[in-house]
């Protein structure tokens, strides 16, 4: 191992720019993974990604990432939330034990593009008739609903899907009509808006309301068709990808390396069996089998990891390592070790394997990206881990939802770019290590 | 087959042979770039070689003898730092020739080479016969005429003609070496450089090949330049000896002189370290190690190990010429 340290410690790193670039890239991903695991703990990430009622209510659907704003002069609309309890509430006692409650939900709208959706949520015990009206900055009042019964608990009023309202606004979709500037209906009117909820309810009853104006852009990563913030998966894709890539590489490459050493040294039947199993493995359609098992039995990432390792132990790398060990086996220092009584095990693990370890390193690093992409491939084929958010999953969702047709390029490009960068990072290191350690290359 | 421009008719025996020395080398230098600095492999070598004379280039490993041969044949690696000096072959300075002219006139037509590692000097995927005949095919000779010539040279070096149709891996080490010697003779060059031709072979095979080379030397009146660290074997062919040390020529003298009583102190020590079978003399060893070639010591490079060192040795001695002996040592300043 001395030689390995000799290379890494001294200034060799500067002589190989691609090695430095690769190390930086991979380091960034490690930092990203740590940040992801720390900022969104595992159980939280799983819960968020599973979604479900109420988790992503306040998030717009298919919103582009915030940095889109940089490319346009005008301000793209963002999500505005007036939460429960934030409204100004006035109560007026009425006869026969009832009271009239009025809740004002003010917000200011300072954007140049229309919001993409509008919804109101109410939390009540029992309300007979409620009236909701929309107050625009230039004083216009548009009544949204009149005398509607709101049933118990939590209800959602999807303003932007209200057909009656749509006709009332001369056919413009509500989330545009309500904001349209009377003079120029193509542009939204900036200023203070108010949503007013009036209702008569029993003294003991309660009424609270919340308004969400869904913006066109949201968050660093944008959102997907289930309103989920993509940042969760973009962040968590890093640790999953790294873990899968590195563990699979360790499992597959290192075991192939050791088995090749053992097989070549012991020779005879063992060597022939290993060689033959490698030939069969070469013919085995690995991915289809993975997919079949994924569909029939279980898709958890750990089963997949175990399978990928099992199917790659006798991979083609066995042939390359075997030819290297065959040459090494005849060298003088091995014969010397036998001469002073070293046994088979000692010769394999103290003399054979350490000699070729430096050539294992580049191969190991080069194989990591192929496993990272294998995980992505499985996810794209709908076989990703059912609960874990990964980059492959985003690409799969984007592809099945026709992101390319709908022009939601960010949805596919962001995970693909991250996958690419991680792959390239490892490959950069692998190729430069190959140049440093490959004995044959140094003679050129 | 690359189209080679029409060659002047083969040197018919009758054309007037150049009268002067076959080969004259002046101030030949060859330096390489290595990771830790510039290696001065060949530094200012001068010598002359008459026609028909075989010269042995002797010296320990790393003394620059192979680089000297490479410099003459212009087989230069990529990391060249300096390549200068004059090499007169039959009167013309071949150093000045363009790469195209050099390749066309000199390579294998005037000077050919038998390289050190015969084991992999034959292309594994081409038949041996084709490779041997290739130089003639390049000179636009007909296929069967070229193969007939190949059969002839195989006969000279003692390889059965059937091997023409075989591949390199089907031949034993000795056979491969003979095939390469045949290849070197096929375009009947003026000089053949033999770089450690038999060091990898067994004693009997080596003796057989040396016998073949002696016969060729007599029959074809060829010049051999034999490069080897095995001094005893060199005496099988050598008429003259060039002794190299740390990239410099230290002695050039006749064989009788060099093998019996060499002039330069290093040559004396070298001869003393050669074991002999028939003469009962215990070999000695030379203390110390040869200097590194990328910052050689000032003055005479053998001084630190020399048993006859004196104050003049701080300064680098020139090559003193006495009759047909030249030696680079202050001891012979006014002989």
């Amino acid at each position, binding site marked *: *191992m*001395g*030689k390995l340290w000799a290379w890494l410690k001294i200034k060799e790193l500067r002589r190989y720019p691609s090695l430095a670039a690769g190390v930086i890239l991979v380091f960034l991903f490690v930092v990203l993974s740590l940040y992801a695991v720390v900022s969104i703990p595992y159980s939280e990430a799983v819960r968020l990604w599973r979604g479900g009622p109420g988790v992503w209510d306040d998030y717009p659907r298919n919103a582009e990432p915030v940095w889109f704003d940089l490319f346009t002069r005008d301000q793209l609309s963002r999500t505005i939330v007036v939460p429960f309890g934030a409204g100004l509430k006035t109560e007026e006692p009425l006869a026969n034990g009832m009271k009239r409650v009025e809740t004002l939900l003010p917000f200011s709208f300072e954007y140049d593009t229309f919001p993409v959706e509008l919804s109101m949520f109410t939390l009540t015990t029992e309300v007979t008739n409620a009236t909701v009206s929309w107050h625009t900055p230039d004083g216009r009042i548009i009544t949204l609903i009149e005398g509607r019964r709101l049933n118990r608990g939590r209800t959602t009023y999807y303003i932007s899907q209200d057909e009656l309202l749509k006709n009332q606004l001369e056919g413009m979709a509500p989330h545009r009509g309500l904001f349209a500037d009377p003079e120029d209906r193509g542009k939204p009117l900036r200023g203070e808006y108010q949503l007013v909820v009036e209702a008569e309810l029993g003294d003991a009853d309660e009424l609270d309301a919340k308004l969400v104006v869904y913006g066109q852009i949201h968050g660093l990563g944008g959102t997907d068709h289930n309103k989920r913030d993509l940042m969760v998966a973009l962040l968590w894709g890093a640790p999953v990808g790294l873990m899968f890539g590195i563990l699979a590489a360790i499992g597959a490459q290192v075991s192939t390396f050791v088995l090749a050493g053992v097989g070549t040294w012991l020779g005879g039947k063992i060597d*022939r069996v290993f060689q033959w199993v490698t030939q069969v493995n070469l013919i085995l359609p690995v991915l289809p089998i993975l997919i079949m098992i994924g569909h029939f039995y279980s898709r958890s990432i750990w089963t997949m990891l175990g399978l990928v390792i099992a199917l790659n132990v006798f991979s083609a790398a066995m042939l390359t390592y075997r030819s290297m060990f065959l040459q090494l086996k005849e*060298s*003088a*220092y091995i*014969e*010397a*070790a*036998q*001469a*002073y*009584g070293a046994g088979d095990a000692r010769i394999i693990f103290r003399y054979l394997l*350490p*000699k070729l*370890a430096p050539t294992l390193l580049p191969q190991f690093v080069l194989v990591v990206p192929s496993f990272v992409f294998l995980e992505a491939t499985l996810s794209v084929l709908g076989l990703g881990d059912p609960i874990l958010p990964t980059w492959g999953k985003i690409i799969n969702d984007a592809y099945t939802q026709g992101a390319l047709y709908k022009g939601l390029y960010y949805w596919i490009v962001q995970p693909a770019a991250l996958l690419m960068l991680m792959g390239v990072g490892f490959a950069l290191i692998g190729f430069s290590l190959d140049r440093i350690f490959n004995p044959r290359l140094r003679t050129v | 087959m690359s189209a080679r421009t029409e060659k002047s008719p083969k040197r018919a025996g009758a054309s007037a042979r150049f009268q002067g020395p076959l080969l004259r080398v002046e101030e030949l230098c060859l330096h390489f770039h290595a990771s830790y600095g510039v290696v001065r492999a060949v530094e200012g070598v001068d010598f002359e070689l008459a026609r028909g004379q*075989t010269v042995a280039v002797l010296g*320990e*490993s790393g003394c620059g003898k192979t680089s000297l041969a490479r410099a003459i044949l212009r087989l230069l690696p990529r990391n060249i730092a300096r390549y200068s000096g004059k090499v007169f072959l039959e009167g013309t300075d071949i150093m000045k020739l363009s790469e195209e002219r050099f390749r066309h006139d000199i390579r294998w037509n005037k000077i050919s080479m038998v390289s050190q590692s015969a084991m992999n000097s034959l292309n594994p995927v081409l038949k041996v016969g084709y490779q041997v005949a290739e130089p003639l095919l390049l000179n636009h000779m007909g296929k069967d005429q070229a193969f007939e010539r190949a059969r002839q040279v195989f006969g000279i070096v003692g390889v059965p003609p059937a091997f023409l149709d075989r591949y390199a891996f089907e031949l*034993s080490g*000795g056979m491969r070496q003979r095939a390469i010697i045949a290849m070197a003779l096929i375009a009947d060059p003026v000089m053949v450089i033999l770089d450690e031709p038999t060091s990898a072979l*067994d*004693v*009997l*095979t*080596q*003796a*057989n090949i*040396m*016998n073949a080379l*002696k*016969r060729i030397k007599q029959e074809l009146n060829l010049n051999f330049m034999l490069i080897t*660290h095995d*001094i*005893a*074997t*060199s*005496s*099988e*062919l*050598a008429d003259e000896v060039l002794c190299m040390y740390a990239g410099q020529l230290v002695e050039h003298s*006749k*064989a*009788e002189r*060099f*093998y*019996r009583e060499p002039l330069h102190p290093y040559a004396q020590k070298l*001869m003393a*370290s*050669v*074991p*002999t*079978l*028939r*003469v009962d003399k215990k*070999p*000695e*060893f*030379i203390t110390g190690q040869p200097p590194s070639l990328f910052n050689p010591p000032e003055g005479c490079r053998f001084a630190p190990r020399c048993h006859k060192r004196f104050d003049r040795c701080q300064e680098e001695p020139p090559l003193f010429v006495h009759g047909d002996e030249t030696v680079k040592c202050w001891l012979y300043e006014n002989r």
Partner: protein
Amino acid sequence: MENNTLLSIKNLQTYFELKRWGFLSAGFVKAVDGVSFELAKGESVTIVGESGSGKTTLLRTIMGLAKPTGGEMVFDGRRLNGERGQMGRDTRWLRSQVGFVQQDPYGALPSFMNVRRILREPLIVNKVKKEEQEHRVRESMEEVRLIPADDFLPKFPHMLSGGQQQRLVIARAIILHPMLIAADEPVSMLDASVRVEILELIGRIQRDHNLAVIYVTHDLSSVRYFSQRAFVMYAAKMVEKADVREIVNNPLHPYTQVLLNAIPDPDAQNATRFRDVPPGEPPSLINPPAGCRFHPRCQHIIEGLCDEEEPPEFEPEPHHFVECWLYK
């Protein structure tokens, strides 16, 4: 009288089975075919022969690296090719008693271990107590003049010169205090000037510790001053055994005569004289020629005898043995 024979070998055979397609037996390579000799403690001897003569296989068999398939080998009074179980313990004991010096010094040293580690390995393998290991390492470096030891201990093989590497190989060979040093072409890779230095080093160690040494080489002239006796091997048989001086000055077996005649001395006359060397190449060891194996290339062939019956060992002169019908 304490028995002075270290090693006695009678009719030793080492065959390798040739396999075709991995399981079909396709005959045997008879690398060592009926070799006998005795070696005294502290005696040094040279085995000379061309490649393919079986000299290296003989050495490996003596060291316990190759399994003998016939004949008898007794090392320091212990019979060696016993039954199954016995075999394993014997081989390990034998290997600790024989130090091995190889041809290519750089190849013989693991490039990823430093000098201290290289020297400690044989001690660890043979379970030498920890405290004694450091002492043994320094003692063996002293022996081969790799001093001051502390300069060399942290170094890696690629940081040493050719001569220093070979010294380290020798240090490793003697660190287990063996009774025999097996040297396979110990100096043929080194330059003439360094060669003699190493041979003298081995000679001194041999004298100081009364070690026996077996040199295996094709170049008799460099080793002749460092061994008392010389054995000549041809096609897996030992054709001549005698004192070195006798072999050099009075070779009896036709092959030895031809072999010595082929080795040149540095002399300008060589360029004019042709050496008479037998044609052809050494025979195959899979099915060697009948009778005396040299008969196809021998000038003194006796028809009907040399080409039919294998010559036994004759002793035409005291302590000078030769396997040739000429001396019947």
